[in-house]
């Protein structure tokens, strides 16, 4: 196992799948000659050429639609969004076409498409570039959504997404690209879609999180253990749709407490869905009401210190956990 960055892990996944299957190509703004706005595809154009790495003009509806049309014909396009916030420009293609074509054709058409790129806030780029649309995308039956939080998951989920016969959105986290971690070298290493991961075992409280929030939860869990002898279990959803409900339920039944952390806005957020699940399946096991931490319900703030307050950071998670356990702060 090599220690590589989250960015490198995604690049390795793309390279391996390009080599494995001639139907795989990557298309997006600045993905080829410029080497990727976030350098995720750095070096791939030099290695695989114009056919497999395609620089698209700034026209999301055009090239996402092109991706869908070519996927209908059996190609496996990986479409990069320079920022996931730009997916709204092509919302018609993403939700009217990608999510519905299999259904409306009575199963005659498949759309083996991946749409990937950096999502989430935390980089001080203001409201237009900081969206976390995973809850919106997950709202459409026909689409799958994954949010890797570690390099290994980034590689494994990306490979699974490319091999999947349904349209999958892979939402990477901008602030995680430089993070290092151990990643298996096996070319067939995949992380199955729809399988959550217990990133830390604990007995006092379950934190359910995805994406960057997982790291915040782990940081909080470490401090809660060291300073307060509180053992937090951290469940990383990894996949938003399909959703691994059993892992969540098992953990909450064990700890009796659930704290849901997400960078999404609270209204109609993923935490609302998980909260519903827990009240329905774990009601008798709960020792405290389910708590939620989300981004503060406003468009993303530009000013760096204020954006930091807007997003769920470790100190907030610690405070909420102590409240749930009636521990004096």
């Amino acid at each position, binding site marked *: 196992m090599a220690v590589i960055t989250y960015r490198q892990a995604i690049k390795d996944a793309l390279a391996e799948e390009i080599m494995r299957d001639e139907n795989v*190509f990557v298309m997006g703004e600045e993905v080829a000659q410029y080497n990727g706005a976030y350098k995720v595809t750095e070096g791939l154009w030099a290695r695989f050429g114009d*056919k497999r790495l395609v620089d*698209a*003009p700034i*026209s999301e*509806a*055009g*090239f*996402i*639609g*092109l*991706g*869908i*049309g*070519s*996927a*209908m*014909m*059996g*190609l496996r396009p990986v479409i990069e969004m320079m920022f996931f916030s730009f997916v709204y420009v092509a919302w*018609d*293609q993403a939700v*009217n*076409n990608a999510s519905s*074509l*299999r*259904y*409306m*054709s*009575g*199963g*005659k*058409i*498949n759309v083996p498409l991946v749409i990937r790129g950096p999502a989430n806030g935390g980089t001080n780029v203001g409201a237009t570039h900081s969206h976390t649309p995973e809850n919106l995308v997950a709202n459409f*039956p*026909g689409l*799958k959504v994954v949010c890797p939080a570690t390099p290994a998951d980034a590689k494994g989920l990306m490979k*699974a997404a490319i091999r*999947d*016969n*349904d349209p999958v959105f892979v939402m990477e986290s901008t602030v995680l690209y430089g993070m290092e971690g151990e990643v298996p070298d096996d070319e067939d290493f*995949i992380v*199955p*879609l*729809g*399988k*959550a991961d217990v990133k830390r075992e604990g007995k006092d409280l379950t934190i359910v999180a995805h994406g960057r929030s997982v790291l915040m939860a782990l940081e909080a869990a470490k401090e809660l253990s060291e300073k307060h002898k509180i053992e937090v279990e951290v469940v990383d959803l990894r*996949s938003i*749709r*399909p*959703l*691994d*409900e059993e892992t969540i339920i098992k953990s909450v039944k064990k700890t009796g407490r659930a704290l849901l952390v997400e960078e999404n806005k609270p209204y109609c957020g993923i935490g609302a*869905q998980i909260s519903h699940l827990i009240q*329905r399946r774990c009601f008798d096991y709960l020792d405290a009401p389910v708590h939620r931490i989300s981004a503060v319900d406003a468009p993303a703030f530009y000013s760096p210190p204020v954006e930091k307050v807007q997003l769920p950071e470790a100190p907030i998670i610690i405070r909420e956990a102590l409240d749930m356990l009636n521990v004096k702060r």
Partner: protein
Amino acid sequence: MSTETKDQAAQAKQDLFAHAKAPINQKLTAEQKIKLYTDMVRIRKFEQAALQSYQKGKMGGFLHLYIGQEATAIGTISLTEENDHIITAYRDHGHALAVGMTMNECMAELFGKFTGCSKGKGGSMHYFAPEKRYWGGHGIVGGQTPLGLGIAYALKYRGLKGCCLCYLGDGAINQGAFHESLNLASLWSIPVIYIIENNRYSMGTSQARSSAYPEAGLASRAEGYNMEWDRIDGSNLYEIRAKVHVAMERARNESRPMILEIDTYRYYGHSIADANHKKYRTKEEIEDYQNNKDPISVYQQILVAEGVLDEDKIKDIDSAAKEEAKASVDFAENSPYPPAQELLTDVYWTTDNPGQHSNQGRMFFNDRLPWDDEYQA
């Protein structure tokens, strides 16, 4: 008829026969010519039967009739070869029948029956037959234009010599997705042919009120993208075939995109929702087209003059198509509705193919299903 319109009619008539001499039309045998005629009549009879059924309350949703535009679907699709593909918008019945979908599966889809081409999940706007290289049937104006580009992109990617015919209405030319598609098609030399079926109205809004500079021709927008374009009389099957054939050969051999604008007309409203389509156009305008430019009458005239068709044959074709359409109504009528459980099939390949793929986690978020015993009680 004024002298002027008489002159125009004479001119038009001359043009009809001019295109009969195009090589692609000269190759047609008498049998093939009759088949083209029959296929147009079949579309019309199907649409008439669909309209009657709609009026009897047999189906839901919208119904976008193709009557008046038959020569476009038949003229263009009769030119397709094994690597050519077709995609269209919501006025899709004509193209569906032209590619060889049966009246039964098409009518049953309108009735929302399980025997419909999309199992009753798509309706009028969403017919599909990928095995016939027919990719639908798309409900959002202009939304199919980048998909057609993608289909043609896949042909080029695989090194196949073919093209994609992507149909759109005149209203779609003002959609952003269409302009993005044109830029990409020309930039990357993709063999897609955009066929604007210009029936003069985007729903109830005339071209003068919806498109800037309509007098230049809608297809002339191609020039801004360094693409070739042409305008075709949509009432003349031979002209359609002659000009579209040239475009398709070019797309296949040079991998260049093109826009073709086919001037046509619809006799009914945009859909059943504006059945009172006379609000935005005059009775005279509709009758003028029906009397002088009807694509079936025009072609019939040509074939009679060529000695291919006679009165008896015309009657036979007419009644056979009528019978076939009536039988499709009976078929639809007698077919079952889809079971409610069909709500949860064809959403994901994964859930329809358990065991063939890693299929973990929950995919659908229904607490209870309407067909569960718990819910019934």
